[in-house]
């Protein structure tokens, strides 16, 4: 038999028992739609996390001492007098020189973290708005709407500041001057600093709405809070490394670990976020897999019933020169056709669901998280799940089809 004959015959055979075919297809649809929904919601979470990642440089590492006591909620430990002299918990200037001297080729710079305590941001002729700022390093891959990463005396602002500060759009903001008010040490008065907007970022849940370079932060702190620039002790340090390969990073981290220091990059922290998304996704796919498994039994049943009903026909085809392979293909394609049509219907439903789920979620439980699109159906997901559904359809029909192909034509044609 020619391939197109096999496919059309298999497809036509589905219409012989319409009720059964419809019910089986329905089972496939339920399974596939669940799978598509699970995948789409997983995509939504992943996209949200990806858009709200701490954008950081892969060359910046945050160092902490392994033996540092971190307070755990509900857990009080005895204070030891030795703690105040204990250099194994905090970084001091000796640590900085140790690091610089031990890894001269790897560590380019060591920083004490600089926190800015901002009162407000404003622009000539506009109102003041509250502000908080973080430090951004030069090679950070920030997602910018416009402009670039700030240099000294420049500032990166989030898109939510565009309108309040009277800019027309992101492009308009770049190059304009804004005024930053930084609190002094005891938060009694503030000092003004004029900075040029270097660029505009997307609104993000996880990074600061304002970001300045390390140099700018240090400069501001030197004026408003000089003692914080070079502290006596710090619970963590930041280092800026040369461009390292993955294996070099691992090796470097191991060496630091032996010295009692833990190093983590933004990437490490992001990895954890993605791990959580992956777990979430796995759970949802697991649930979807169960409903697809139910559909599998539906297909097995349909193919088996079809074989039982058409025993004589199978015998006839074999008597007329049809091979085992042909019988196997006929029933397998029948199952693949159920999977195929079921999946087409499922994709249509899944697309329609997108138009329902997203508006509803934004009206209800996602009201406050505008940029979180819960349901993201991607073409890649559609293709991926297509192969899953077809593989399941094939798997479901494999043994029944094999059974059919082994029917003895004489037995099958024997009159009752």
């Amino acid at each position, binding site marked *: 038999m020619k391939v197109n004959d096999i496919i059309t015959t298999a497809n036509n055979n589905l219409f012989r028992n319409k009720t059964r075919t419809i019910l089986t297809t329905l089972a496939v649809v339920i399974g596939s739609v669940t799978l598509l929904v699970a995948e789409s919601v997983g995509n939504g979470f992943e996209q949200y996390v990806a858009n709200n990642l701490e954008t950081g440089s892969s060359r910046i590492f945050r160092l902490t001492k392994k033996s540092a006591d971190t307070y755990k909620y509900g857990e009080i430990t005895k204070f030891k007098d030795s703690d105040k002299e204990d250099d194994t918990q905090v970084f001091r200037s000796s640590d900085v020189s140790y690091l610089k001297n031990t890894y001269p080729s790897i560590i380019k710079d060591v920083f004490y973290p600089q926190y800015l305590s901002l009162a407000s941001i404003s622009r000539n002729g506009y109102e003041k708005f509250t502000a908080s700022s973080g430090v951004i390093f030069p090679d950070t891959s920030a997602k910018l709407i416009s402009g670039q990463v700030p240099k000294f005396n420049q500032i990166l602002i989030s898109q939510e500041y565009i309108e309040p500060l009277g800019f027309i759009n992101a492009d308009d903001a770049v190059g304009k001057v804004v005024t930053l008010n930084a609190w002094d040490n005891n938060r009694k008065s503030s000092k003004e600093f004029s900075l040029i907007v270097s660029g505009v970022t997307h609104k993000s849940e996880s990074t600061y709405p304002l970001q300045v370079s390390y140099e700018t932060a240090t400069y501001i702190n030197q004026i408003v809070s000089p003692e914080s620039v070079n502290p006596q002790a710090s619970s963590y340090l930041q280092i800026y490394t040369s461009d390292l390969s993955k294996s070099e990073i691992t090796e470097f981290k191991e060496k630091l670990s032996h010295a009692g220091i833990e190093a983590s990059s933004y990437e490490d922290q992001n990895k954890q976020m993605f791990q959580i998304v992956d777990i979430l996704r796995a759970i949802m796919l697991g649930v979807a897999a169960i409903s697809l498994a139910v559909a599998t039994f539906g297909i097995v049943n349909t193919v088996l019933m079809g074989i039982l009903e058409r025993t004589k026909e199978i015998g006839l085809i074999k008597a*007329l020169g049809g091979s085992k392979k042909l019988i196997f293909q006929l029933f397998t394609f029948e199952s693949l056709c159920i999977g195929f049509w079921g999946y087409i219907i499922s994709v249509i439903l899944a697309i329609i669901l997108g138009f329902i789920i997203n508006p509803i979620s934004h009206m209800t439980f996602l009201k406050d998280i505008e940029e979180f699109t819960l349901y993201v159906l991607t073409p890649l997901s559609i293709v991926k799940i297509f192969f899953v559904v077809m593989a399941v359809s094939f798997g479901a029909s494999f043994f029944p089809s094999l059974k059919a192909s082994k029917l003895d034509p004489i037995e099958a044609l024997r009159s009752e």
Partner: protein
Amino acid sequence: MSNNKTDFIIEAKNISRVYGGKDEEVCKALDNVSFTVKKGESVAIIGKSGSGKSTLMHILACLDKPSSGQLFINGQEVSQMSPKELEKLRGESFGFVFQQFFLNPNDTVLENVILPLKITGQDSKKIREEKAITMLKEVDILSKKNNKSKNLSGGQKQRVCIARALVGNPQIIFADEPTGNLDSTNGAMVEKILFGLNKRGITLILVTHDIELASKCQKQIMIKDGKIVKSL
């Protein structure tokens, strides 16, 4: 592969077919059967039910294998042929007419007749249809070509069945009790068609218990308890 020039389209040598064995009781359905069929001959295999005549036909039609003995079709030994060659032989050189017709009830007459061509995968859709229509004309049932076969009478069904057997242009037609389910008028008509085909050179192997029908064949092989008791 031996390809002896031979006048015999079928040559059966000492064919036996044994069922059972091991723990079961051994049943000899065919016992040392030998005969020959010439090209274009009409042969009746006669016997009561359980005599082994159906088993013999199944073996001749290569649907079953003999337990011992040799079967030659066109001079070629069947046991030496691969499953693929056997399928090709059945599909392209044999035609089957069954007592129970075995038409697909929900398919149209035309679709039923096209089926063998579809299975062997020969010809385009258009040519298949043309061939089927020619055959339906021949058995005088063209007017029903778009009817579902379940809506036909027994005689009509058997004519469709013959058209289906003919469509692949076979050398041999195996007819298993072709008139068994028909009344005498329809039976006579089917008989006429079958012998008409035989006159055109198609070898006819007819399995029947109807002595009168058998007597119209050029050769009769009478089977009893798996043995040939009389061969004319």
